[in-house]
């Protein structure tokens, strides 16, 4: 209908969406949509749809829109129009081809980053509306294959990566042993009831990034923190069920996480540098279960580092010399207000912080979050093409001297690595913890 400069991306064949769609009937689609709109959904859907005046002011908030040469189909309201708006207008009478497109848009063309909520004059929460679409596609069994597989992992192992019950304590013991070559009396205390802090991480850490556990152990021991890690399921704070629309499974894994902390009688849960997990434990999962705030306080790594440095529990031997820039992850900055604390920490451990623009709450998304990177290889290029604007933003800050890109979030980290390689940025992508480990004083 519209004459667009950019051609739409070809619909990507995804086994989860395709096979799920093949089993659909029009009745089931209609019944499911009406169930979500009328039975599960409440006033927000109705008010948002009635309040949106189709002004298009949300468009420039979205990195997909900006990266696709202002193609209006990628604007937040444009995505609502192609999905939920149409379902409502047609009272659920949409066909399977429509649902396939809707599933793809909701799952892979929106990171639920909520930047657009800051650009809409009415504060309409398009991320929420996209979550509603994901809920519908979940109930229709047409979630993209890779993220659905991850949800299956959550359901069986209560972690994101099919880490088996024995592999978890075994990995921690292995890392403890490794780290003792650096700090001979180091401990990763398992199941220590009454510790001050339970440290929780996401599945990929024991699976692929055990060095992060190592670094955390060094930090905890150097700072003399009274900490523990559970040896049971419940150690993983991640949550792809939140992003597939499987709220019931989300509730189950969050309950296990919090009840594990309650069982260990810790006063706080400190979590690693992960954004989506923060959203799940701080905002979304706890609320689904009926907890207004997390029943055991959640401290994100950024805030934890901030406290350790501010209280002088960690000393810096020599600051990191290479100029750095900071990517503000949506879930901990727009979702947790940790941007100034992140800057405090980075200034304490790095010589030179060069700001990218826009930054803080207005930073562009990494395009990996919201479960998009978890939709796997079929959508890798959709992510990279959908975030050209991020590459432009990074080239600009690189031109001003930044060489290291700090991303204190796992999904951001992985997504930015892809941007980094594809666009040839040649920046070093690091967690804050990587640098902190490198520059801190380590007692013998």
């Amino acid at each position: 209908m519209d004459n667009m400069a950019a051609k739409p991306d070809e619909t990507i064949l995804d086994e989860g969406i395709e096979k799920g769609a093949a089993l659909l009937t029009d009745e089931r689609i209609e019944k499911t949509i009406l169930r979500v709109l009328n039975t599960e959904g409440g006033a927000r859907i109705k008010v948002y749809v009635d309040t949106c005046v189709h002004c298009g002011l949300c468009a420039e908030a979205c990195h997909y829109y900006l990266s696709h040469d202002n193609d209006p189909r990628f604007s937040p309201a444009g995505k609502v129009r192609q999905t939920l708006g149409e379902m409502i207008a047609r009272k659920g009478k949409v066909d399977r081809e429509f649902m396939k497109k809707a599933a793809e848009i909701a799952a892979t063309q929106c990171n639920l980053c909520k930047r657009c909520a800051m650009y809409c004059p009415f504060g309409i929460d398009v991320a929420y509306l996209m979550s509603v679409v994901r809920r519908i596609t979940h109930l229709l069994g047409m979630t993209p294959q890779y993220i659905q597989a991850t949800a299956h992992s959550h359901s069986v192992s209560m972690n994101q990566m099919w880490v088996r019950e024995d592999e978890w304590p075994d990995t921690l013991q292995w890392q403890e042993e490794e780290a003792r070559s650096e700090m001979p009396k180091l401990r990763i205390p398992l199941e220590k009831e009454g510790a001050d802090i339970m440290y929780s991480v996401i599945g990929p850490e024991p699976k692929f990034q055990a060095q992060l556990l190592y670094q955390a152990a060094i930090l905890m021991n150097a700072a003399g923190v009274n900490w523990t890690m559970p040896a049971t399921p419940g150690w993983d704070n991640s949550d792809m069920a939140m992003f597939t629309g499987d709220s019931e499974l989300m509730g189950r894994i969050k309950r296990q996480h919090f009840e594990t902390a309650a069982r260990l009688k810790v006063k706080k849960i400190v979590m690693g540098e992960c954004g989506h997990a923060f959203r799940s434990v701080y905002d979304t999962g706890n609320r689904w279960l009926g907890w207004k705030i997390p029943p055991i306080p959640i401290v994100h790594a950024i805030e934890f580092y901030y406290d350790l440095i501010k209280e002088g529990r960690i000393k810096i031997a020599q600051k990191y010399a290479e100029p750095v820039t900071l990517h503000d992850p949506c879930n901990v900055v727009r979702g947790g207000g940790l941007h100034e604390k992140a800057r405090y920490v980075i200034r304490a451990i790095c010589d030179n912080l060069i700001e990218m623009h826009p930054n803080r709450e207005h930073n562009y998304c990494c395009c990996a979050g919201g479960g998009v990177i978890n939709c796997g290889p079929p959508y890798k290029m959709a992510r990279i093409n959908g975030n050209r604007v991020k590459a432009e933003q990074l080239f600009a800050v690189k031109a001003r001297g930044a060489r290291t890109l700090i991303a204190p979030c796992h999904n951001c980290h992985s997504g930015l690595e892809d941007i980094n390689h594809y666009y040839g940025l040649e920046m070093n992508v690091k967690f804050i913890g990587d640098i902190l480990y490198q520059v801190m004083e380590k007692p013998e």
Partner: protein
Amino acid sequence: MDALYRFLSGPLAWVSFVVFIAGSLYRLLSMGFLVRRKEKFIFSVMSWKYSFRSIFHWITPFASVNMRRHPVMTITTFAFHICLFLTPIFLLAHGVLWDDAFNIHLWALPNGLADIMTLVVIAGGVFFLCRRMKLAEVRYLTTLSDYLLLIMVAAPFLTGFIAYHQWIDYRFFMTLHVLTGEIMLMAIPFTRLSHMLFAPFTRAYMGSEFGSVRHARDW
């Protein structure tokens, strides 16, 4: 024509006010009850401080990043909405009606100023129309109803302007003015013009989420 005018400015005016007020109350209350039934958590998030922090930032011109990015749109929007809101209430000719109907004595706008404000609304409508047709991201979202709403909002001002200046058939345009004004009033609760009712609440909710949960700005 006289009988029609008397009907429009008499019984139908009352009907339209009743529909507007009762309809608005109905919409707001039913949404409130729906929140209570389905999304009660929203009440627990709401904060006066952060609601007003957000509303304040969004009713102040250029107080949000997005407003600064679109200066023409921002100026037009503010001018349009201010004039749209104030002109019908404080127009001298309407003041007589307020007095007659409700015995309310309102301060009245000087006629020249009211004339300019009317033009601002009409010009704003034209601007929005052009924007809808020209800008791809707006056009993509536009449906027939968006044009109808624009016409519905501009019509009372256009007809009122023509009638006031008595260029062509005063009585016809006066009648049309009253009719279109009443249609608009009655349409507010039941069309997307209801953003007038809901905007403070959506803004307050998002402001509260950002302020008390997310500890971040929402402007």
